[in-house]
């Protein structure tokens, strides 16, 4: 680590995050609000057809206020589909991020506690999953197990588990040799208690930063797989599948894919910016 921090970090002093991060936070808050309030704010049902107004253009490209982001080939409102897609994609990404963090952290702590053969097996699995492109594995698993949403979320949850496992194991081994862990162990605490109540809270900040870094990757994976037609299946809709279907109408109705594409990019960008900022702020060792 380069020792180039010139002025000591101002502790306790609350400073406003940089403008880009602030923008990211606002955008993310907006997306969260949309995802939570989706059924309330949606102008139409995302499956409602309006066959008189098929492929109608958005406002500004010759459309009407009735469908101000336009409609698709079946006259379904793009805004309604976008709102429903945001809800779907964010739900999947949240679920998968949490599953990945849980699996990875559990295995990492297990390896740190058990050592020996268990640790070697965990490390071997870590090597294995770090060395194969996840998209290829996911493709193979997905099409052969069918397309249930639950399975899809669990599958995406396997993405990046090895990163949490590696971090959790390393930090837990380091923490285990520190005074506080030895002290509670001396007081007769069970290993479970030592790891979950004492070591985990001390390494949580690093794990949370890793989660914010994995989150946009999962959004990209989900939208990529859905784009290929192998993720979220109709009638459900996600940001990626909207882009995938919109691609058929690229020349006649580009607005179908432009709005979900825009949301994907802005959302991943926001989370990345926030993640980088958090990393610099909370954990300088994670560069």
């Amino acid at each position: 680590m380069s020792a180039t921090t010139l002025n000591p970090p101002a502790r306790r002093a609350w400073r406003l995050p940089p403008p880009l991060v602030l923008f990211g936070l606002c955008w993310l808050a907006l997306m969260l609000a949309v995802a939570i309030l989706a059924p309330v704010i949606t102008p139409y049902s995302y499956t409602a057809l309006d066959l008189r107004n098929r492929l109608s253009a958005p406002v500004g490209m010759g459309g009407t206020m009735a469908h101000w982001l336009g409609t698709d080939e079946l006259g379904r409102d793009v805004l309604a589909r976008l709102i429903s897609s945001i809800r779907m994609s964010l739900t999947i990404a949240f679920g998968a991020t949490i599953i990945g963090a849980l699996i990875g952290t559990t295995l990492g702590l297990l390896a740190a506690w058990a050592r020996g053969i268990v640790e070697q097996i965990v490390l071997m699995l870590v090597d294995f999953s770090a060395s194969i492109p996840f998209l290829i594995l996911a493709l193979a698993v997905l099409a052969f197990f069918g397309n249930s949403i639950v399975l899809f979320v669990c599958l995406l949850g396997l993405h990046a588990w090895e990163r949490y496992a590696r971090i959790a194991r390393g930090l837990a081994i380091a923490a285990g040799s520190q005074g506080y862990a030895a002290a509670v162990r001396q007081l007769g605490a069970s290993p479970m208690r030592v790891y979950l109540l004492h070591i985990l809270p001390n390494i949580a900040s690093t794990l949370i930063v890793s989660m914010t870094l994995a989150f946009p990757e999962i959004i990209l994976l989900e939208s990529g797989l859905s784009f290929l037609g192998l993720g979220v299946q109709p009638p459900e809709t996600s940001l990626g599948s909207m882009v995938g279907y919109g691609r058929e109408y690229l020349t006649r109705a580009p607005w179908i894919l432009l709005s979900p594409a825009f949301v994907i990019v802005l959302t991943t960008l926001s989370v990345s910016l926030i993640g980088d900022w958090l990393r610099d702020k909370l954990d300088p060792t994670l560069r």
Partner: protein
Amino acid sequence: MVRFLAWRSLRAFLTIFLVVTFAFLVLRLSGDPAQIIMGADAPPEAVEAFRSAWGLDRSVWEQYLGYVGSIFTGDLGRSMRDGRPAAALVAERIPATLALTIPALMLKLGLGIPAGIYAALHRNSVIDRLVMLVAVAGFTIPSFVLGLLLVLVFAVQLGWLPSGGQESWRHAILPVVTLGIGGAAVLARFTRSAMLEVLGQPYIRTASAKGVPWRRVVSGHAAPNAAIPTVTIIGFMLGSLIAGAVVVESVFSWPGVGRLMVVAVANRDLAVVQCVLLLVSFTMVVANFLVDLAYGLIDPRLRTGAQGGH
């Protein structure tokens, strides 16, 4: 060095073994391919005949041992769709994929590394900020969005380039650019942080203090040291020469390995999927192995096992 290589080879072999087992388990246990290929209303005798022809009526263990055995003899099974050897089907797609991924790799290296070094040397300048902004954008824009935007602008609006297919070299421009930009962004970001890390080291100060020209300090002292972490990511890019274009090939209807994989997965063509999986993991493992060798060449400490001075 010999022990190091032997250990690495063992681990590489183990990884491939794990992939084979994983592929076999997932693909065989997830459904009955005979029913899927023949359709639900196929006559039972026909399904039975299909099963015994493909060895699907044996126990899973027998199938597995037979599969591993046939891999060693170079037989990767036949496509269940048209009966041709899966290995041949995959092999004939490899040139098309490499025709995209190799130029894209050149683009990544040619753009990413110089941009990263320049940004590090002119830290906080306008160009540095610009490079970092483009790098973050390149990292967060998914390849299918970038590809479709390029199609929208250069094929639909301007009409300069074709939007898909593989008839001429002009068809390759948009997919190569799509692949290259994202990778160049990642590489620029990585190179920049590696260079910044190195430029803060005492030996750089020493070198410039004793009067070595700055140009020589950068090319002789900073760049070689910054190359070590950068080699890892280049190795990963080398490993994804086969697998890295799945989405882009689909966007541009390019008949490569990735497209074959997507179609085979949709058709549940087990032999082809396993073959691609094996090919991809093999290239990844070879690339990782090469990275380790390159480490040995760039960093003498790793070769001799000696500890560094700083």
